[in-house]
């Protein structure tokens, strides 16, 4: 048996009654009580997530913007206001998705990058390899000294200000997808739930006290189970499930993040232009009784597809999914999903399914 990695909040999760699971090699809370209650807690009020397993990377030095402009499928030139964030895929030269990540523009000498836990080591190796060729003076530093907590829900910001009043002046005016560097606390108005809120990066040794301080003002801990249903309802991809290195961003619902029109060259661009995809990502809502799950086959008149993420939507009280299907499939079509020995009807819909406390179908 391999030893699981733990975050600095491990003891706190256990003290709060979490059910712990192996999540990609990390010992993480999947739920503390009812996963559905935790989901509604975030949509309607506020909850907090341990996201210390995600990795913060700082890219520093002259020319950092030009380097990111080449490294990423989205265009770093879109962010010009300090603190502004950008979501992007990072591609192999063949167009496969290495990871999806968020970059924050802080200064022309400093961009902060947040990457997924399971891909962090290969991401950093890739960034360093590319930097060695294209920007050898740049420093790429994995911030293993930092922890991260996401506080999400309509009341999230107010709760953070209650606990960290010293950050209020600098973070009150943040727009969505913008961060402020408040000394020890880096506060970003970002998240993975489709709700308002902050993601707070802070020194590892301070995170347990921060977690308990949030708990004391009424912020409930939320497990990875509800995190998954929240992000699925919000129509946000999960790396390793909805996309990976075997598929490109255009067939993963990420065309909006890929800038193919400008003159700018970036890693993977030539492959994307040379191979227009024949599949696309759509939303599904199950019409019959059952639950959609990843890897179930989808039958359509245009050929076969596959569910990439599926679950039960607590907001809609229906089963929903993201599925990769042939381009000919249209919104409003009815398709068949194979679940065990049955073929069940599902409706093709435009996603997101729910955001900001409300169902969108």
């Amino acid at each position, binding site marked *: 048996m391999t030893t699981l990695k733990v975050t600095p909040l491990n003891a706190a999760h256990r003290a709060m009654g979490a059910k712990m699971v192996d999540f990609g090699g990390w010992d993480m809370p999947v739920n503390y009580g009812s996963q559905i209650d935790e989901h509604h807690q975030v949509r309607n009020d506020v909850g907090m997530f341990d996201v210390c397993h995600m990795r913060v990377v700082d890219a520093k030095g002259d020319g950092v913007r030009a380097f990111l402009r080449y490294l990423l499928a989205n265009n770093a030139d879109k962010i010009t206001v300090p603190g502004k964030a950008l979501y992007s895929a990072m591609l192999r030269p063949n167009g496969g998705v290495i990871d999806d990540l968020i970059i924050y523009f802080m200064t022309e000498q400093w961009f902060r990058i947040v990457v997924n836990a399971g891909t962090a080591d290969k991401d950093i190796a890739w960034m360093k390899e590319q930097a060695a060729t294209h920007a050898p003076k740049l420093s790429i530093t994995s911030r293993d000294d930092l922890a991260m907590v996401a506080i999400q829900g309509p009341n999230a910001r107010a709760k953070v200000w209650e606990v960290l009043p010293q950050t209020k002046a600098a973070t009150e005016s943040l727009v969505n997808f913008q961060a402020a560097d408040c000394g020890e606390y880096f506060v970003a108005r970002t998240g993975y739930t489709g709700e308002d809120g902050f993601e707070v990066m802070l020194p590892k040794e301070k995170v347990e006290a921060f977690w308990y301080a949030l708990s004391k003002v009424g912020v409930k801990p939320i497990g990875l*189970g509800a995190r998954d249903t929240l992000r699925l309802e919000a129509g946000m991809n999960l790396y390793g499930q909805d996309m990976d290195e075997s598929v490109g961003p255009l067939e993963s619902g990420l065309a909006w993040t890929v800038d193919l029109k400008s003159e700018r060259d970036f890693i993977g661009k030539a492959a994307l232009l040379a191979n227009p995809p024949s599949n696309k990502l759509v939303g599904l809502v199950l019409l019959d009784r059952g639950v959609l799950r990843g890897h179930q086959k989808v039958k359509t008149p245009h050929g076969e597809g596959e569910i990439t993420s599926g679950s039960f939507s607590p907001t809609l009280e229906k089963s929903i999914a993201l599925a990769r299907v042939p381009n000919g499939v249209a919104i409003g079509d009815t398709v068949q999903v194979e679940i065990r020995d049955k073929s069940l009807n599902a409706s093709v819909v435009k996603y997101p399914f729910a955001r900001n406390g409300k169902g969108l179908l």
Partner: protein
Amino acid sequence: MSNPSNLKYTASHEWVKTEADGSITVGITQHAQELLGDMVFVEAPTAGRKLKAKEECAVVESVKAAADVYAPVSGEVIAANGDLDGSPENINSDPYGAWIFKMKPDNAADVAALLDAAAYQAVVDSEAH
């Protein structure tokens, strides 16, 4: 919650209650519902279906995962709990009340040979280590 001593159990986490007429009522244990979490869908076998012991015959799905339910003994299904169609969460709130299906066992001795509460608890404890 302890496992009721008047029930029999399987290592695959079904509980079995013997009724006065010799038929059995089957559900999933407290431990099983705890592992699965919030239930959102139950597919029970239809009356008249003949089952072999340990055959997959029902599916319970939580938000997290789908799990098979197995026939504890051989026999014929005589009823399914239709209440669970609209209220699968009853399995979470009352696992030993929210039965899934009823069977007429081929052989009463098969039922007697299932695990008692203490033996089932030993199975649960061994899984935790």
